[in-house]
């Protein structure tokens, strides 16, 4: 074994990342090579110095309570819209509920798409404001698609529509509609398009339908058991073109 080869292995040796054969090889080499043995000694010395003298910054009690309070508040805020009052209503008004219940159902089903649309617009705006547009910056669909594997329990279709004027710029994970979703990001001139994808309750495939919220356009379609939502400040016609191309 040459010294160069040996030195490659000295770091993994101290980090206990070598398999048995490599370990035997390197230990044999170390017995006959003063330079490498010294190098190893220095490395061990350095690690010891770091271990003994580098500060380990523990969290204060105050930070512990602050973090716990923030998480609990977020748990409540998350739960509120979908449970609090329908639950209370169901329990306390059990007898008189027949009519009231019907009304609640109608209201909540009517309200849901709108809540979702607001959520999507908020997700889009957040991605632009929080400097968190991309977790995986790549214009290559073969990089973006595998990146989602292992991070999500579904595999969104990633298409590159550069030739049609919608350039793929990357992807990221986002949280919407009560779950982790895939967000793919496309650029059309100066406009960013967020394409959110998650498994859909509906099995059937249906074509694009468009709505507008707070100055943003949203186009929605279902395909292969996945729900797709494109959100952008791009004009409605071009966003629908995007959806049609993507859906093909």
């Amino acid at each position, binding site marked *: 074994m040459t010294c160069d080869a040996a030195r490659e292995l000295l770091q993994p040796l101290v980090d206990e990342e070598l398999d048995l054969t490599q370990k035997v090889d390197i230990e044999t080499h170390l017995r006959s090579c003063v330079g490498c043995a*010294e190098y190893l000694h220095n490395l061990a010395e350095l690690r010891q110095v770091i271990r003994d003298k580098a500060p380990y910054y523990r969290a204060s009690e105050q930070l512990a309570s602050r*973090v716990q309070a*923030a998480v609990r508040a977020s748990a409540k805020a998350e739960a509120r819209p979908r449970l609090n009052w329908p639950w209370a209503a169901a329990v306390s008004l059990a007898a008189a509920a027949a009519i009231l219940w019907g009304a609640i159902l109608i209201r909540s089903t009517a309200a849901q798409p709108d809540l979702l649309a607001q959520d999507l617009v908020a997700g889009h705006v957040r991605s632009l404001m929080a400097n968190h547009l991309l977790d995986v910056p790549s214009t290559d669909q073969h990089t973006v698609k595998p990146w989602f594997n292992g991070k999500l329990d579904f595999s969104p279709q990633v298409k590159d529509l550069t030739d049609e004027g919608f350039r793929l710029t990357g992807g990221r994970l986002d949280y919407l509609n009560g779950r982790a979703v895939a967000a793919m990001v496309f650029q059309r001139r100066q406009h960013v398009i967020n394409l959110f994808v998650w498994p859909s309750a509906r099995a059937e495939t249906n074509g694009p339908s468009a709505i507008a919220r707070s100055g943003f356009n949203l186009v929605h379609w279902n395909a292969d058991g996945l729900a797709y939502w494109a959100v952008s400040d791009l004009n409605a016609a071009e966003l629908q073109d995007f959806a049609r191309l993507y859906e093909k």
Partner: protein
Amino acid sequence: MGLRPPDAARLARFEQTVLPHLNAAHNLARWMVRNEADAQDVVQEAYLRAFRFFDGFHGSDGRAWLLAIVRNTSRTWMQQAAKGDSAAEFDEDQHSRFCPTAGPEAQMIRQSGIDSVRQCIEELPVEYKETLVMREMEEMSYKEIADATSVPLGTVMSRLARARARVQNCLLVRAKEARA
């Protein structure tokens, strides 16, 4: 008003598996952003993100999972703080010229003071620093670090080697200065 049972169970599970790693989260954030007030904000933000993504966590090691989020949150925070001034892009090759010292003089680093050690680590490029902190202070494996920092295993190895070489050089320079 209390939480519905599934939500309460989710919160309890989060508090059991992720909350106990607060020290590790704070340590990493503190090394990365280099200031206590910002580190606290980063930790809180990271925990809220972790809670939001908790359904996607199926592993057994809540710490490595959390540290990946802390690391990303710190990075985002640093990018925002650096907006405006043109920080040089990190270039692996540009930083690759450091050779680990082999020689008896390296014994000198044994006498290094706490401040020198802290400063020498603090001044590392963030790519090296996060790798070194995860390895030396959290004892994470190469694989865990690779996952947490989204780079291949080989990059973890070379970053770690360079981080150590730099700290070693830095400590040596300081030891010599002190002697002169």
